[in-house]
């Protein structure tokens, strides 16, 4: 396909974000889905799982803002994120969600460790539970709400993809650190998340058409292949042999690696699709032609 361009230069800019951002997509997903896992385990009286999901979530929640601040061009101005709440900016909405989630889950984890102030801890757990699902999915909206073709055109799938991967990785993390006899729901969540992730990925590729070919190329392609292999293998281990500690740990770790690779695949795919002007021009020309022909 030949498309006119200006010396083959990109039209939309590649993001200026560094590796901290996909790493945050991963930790934020783990934090968000862990809060849900924690809340439901608490409700169902599985204290062993509840505690561990709480601690996993709190660690991921504390790591997340550090990664985001480090990626800012002016880290000392990170508080400017809270000058306003702006619904047109997923980054603004997400900053507030992360503030609520991180504040609540780290408070709850600290009080759990100290064994004090149970009513405050419960209130914090409720806030963290409520903030969990949006924390795990808004990052999909964040990247989809751009002019990067492979992100923008996947706007119906990315929040689902990130939510599924968050469920898979949070379940996997809990399966790694929880004794196997208490980790049944975590394993089931991990496997369900992995299956959902595979289905959403396939649907996303179908809808993207030729723009989606970046997921087969270069760094995005490598990361996507690693993600698929690790997640499939890990979920298989958890599903078939998850009642034994060694396969449960191995499977969980593989899935955590797979989830991280998936975030890097999506991230790098965005750069690759911004770099080549064809991905910007061809879908827009098709849109124009469709409009002109009625």
């Amino acid at each position: 396909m030949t498309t006119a361009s200006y010396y083959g230069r990109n039209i939309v800019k590649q993001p200026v974000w560094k590796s901290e951002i996909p790493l945050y997509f991963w930790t934020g997903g783990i934090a968000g889905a862990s809060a849900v896992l924690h809340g439901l385990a608490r409700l169902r009286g599985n204290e062993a799982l509840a505690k561990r999901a709480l601690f996993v979530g709190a660690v991921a929640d504390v790591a997340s803002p550090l990664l985001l601040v480090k990626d800012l061009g002016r880290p000392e101005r990170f508080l400017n994120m809270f000058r306003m709440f702006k619904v047109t900016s997923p980054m603004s909405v997400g900053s507030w969600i992360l503030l609520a989630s991180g504040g609540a889950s780290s408070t709850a984890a600290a009080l759990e460790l100290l064994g004090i102030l149970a009513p405050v801890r419960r209130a914090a757990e409720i806030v963290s539970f409520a903030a969990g699902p949006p924390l795990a999915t808004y990052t999909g909206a964040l990247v989809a709400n751009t002019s990067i073709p492979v992100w923008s055109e996947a706007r119906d799938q990315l929040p689902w993809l990130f939510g599924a991967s968050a469920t898979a990785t949070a379940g996997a993390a809990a399966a790694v650190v929880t004794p196997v006899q208490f980790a049944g729901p975590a394993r089931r969540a991990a496997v369900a998340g992995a299956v959902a992730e595979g289905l959403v990925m396939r649907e996303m590729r179908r809808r993207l058409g030729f723009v989606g070919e970046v997921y087969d190329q270069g760094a995005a392609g490598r990361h996507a292949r690693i993600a698929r292999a690790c997640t499939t293998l890990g979920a298989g281990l958890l599903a078939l042999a998850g009642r034994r500690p060694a396969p449960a740990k191995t499977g969980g770790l593989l899935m955590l690696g797979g989830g991280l690779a998936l975030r890097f695949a999506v991230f790098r795919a965005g750069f690759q699709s911004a770099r080549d002007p064809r991905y910007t021009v061809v879908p827009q020309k098709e849109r124009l032609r469709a409009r002109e022909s009625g």
Partner: protein
Amino acid sequence: MSTASYGAEAKPRVGFFTDTTVCIGCKACEVACKEWNLIPSGGLEWTGESYDNTSQLDANTWRHVAFIEQPKPLRVDADGADPPDGQPEPLRWLMESDVCKHCTHAGCLDACPTGALFRTEFGTVVVQEDVCNGCGYCVPACPFGVIDRRDLPRSPQDAPLALPLLGTKEDGRVWKCTLCYDRLKGGHEPACAKACPTDSIQFGELDELRERAQKRLAKLEGEGWNGARLYGDDPGDGVGGFGAFFLLLDEPEVYGLPPDPVVPTRHLARLWRTTALAAAGLLAGVALAFAGGAE
């Protein structure tokens, strides 16, 4: 786009009409912009791409003159046919001074989480550099790839960074054309328009510029100019019309411009609904995992 919140301070919306048919590629606009706005050097690089050595709009280039050498006739007859046989091989040299479009619905402004990007009383889009924290979200939000983060290598005499462990680059904020907000405040036209020797860059009230552009296009069409078209003059387009629009002589992508730009925000309501559904799906999925037993 609205300047309604300015009340009595609101001014008529202003912008640029860049008529590329009279651009001579002198780059006076690039130089005037750099000088007036005290923009640092973007480096010296010889690209070999016609006379263009700045290549694109970025944090340190707010006016960029594109040069395109084409084996196409400058004019065609009424049927759109090439000139008759016996004439030399057609060749034309297109030049276009590109700039921030100051969109009616601006992706950068909508995406900015800090409120650093704002709509001025003139209807233009400007970054407040004392507020920007360099999150970079506006950079991929812009459908034109205009706004960019300035990350310059630090030199030994630079003042120490507030948090030295967190960065090794200078500035770290985003920059783009301000449509010379400071000059507008003083009642002057922007530096690039002032410096343009052929009036390829015309500054004025947007309504008036759009009328002028229509007349100019009609004249060029009458004279048989090959491929003359307006780009960004339609308030019904994907960004609600540009504050800075163009008269081009070929498809927009030939100049490195998107053929059908759409502000990402246009899809945001649906995107938030999808996100809410996915969040509910996550909750339901984990709840189902507990349906098989709590342990």
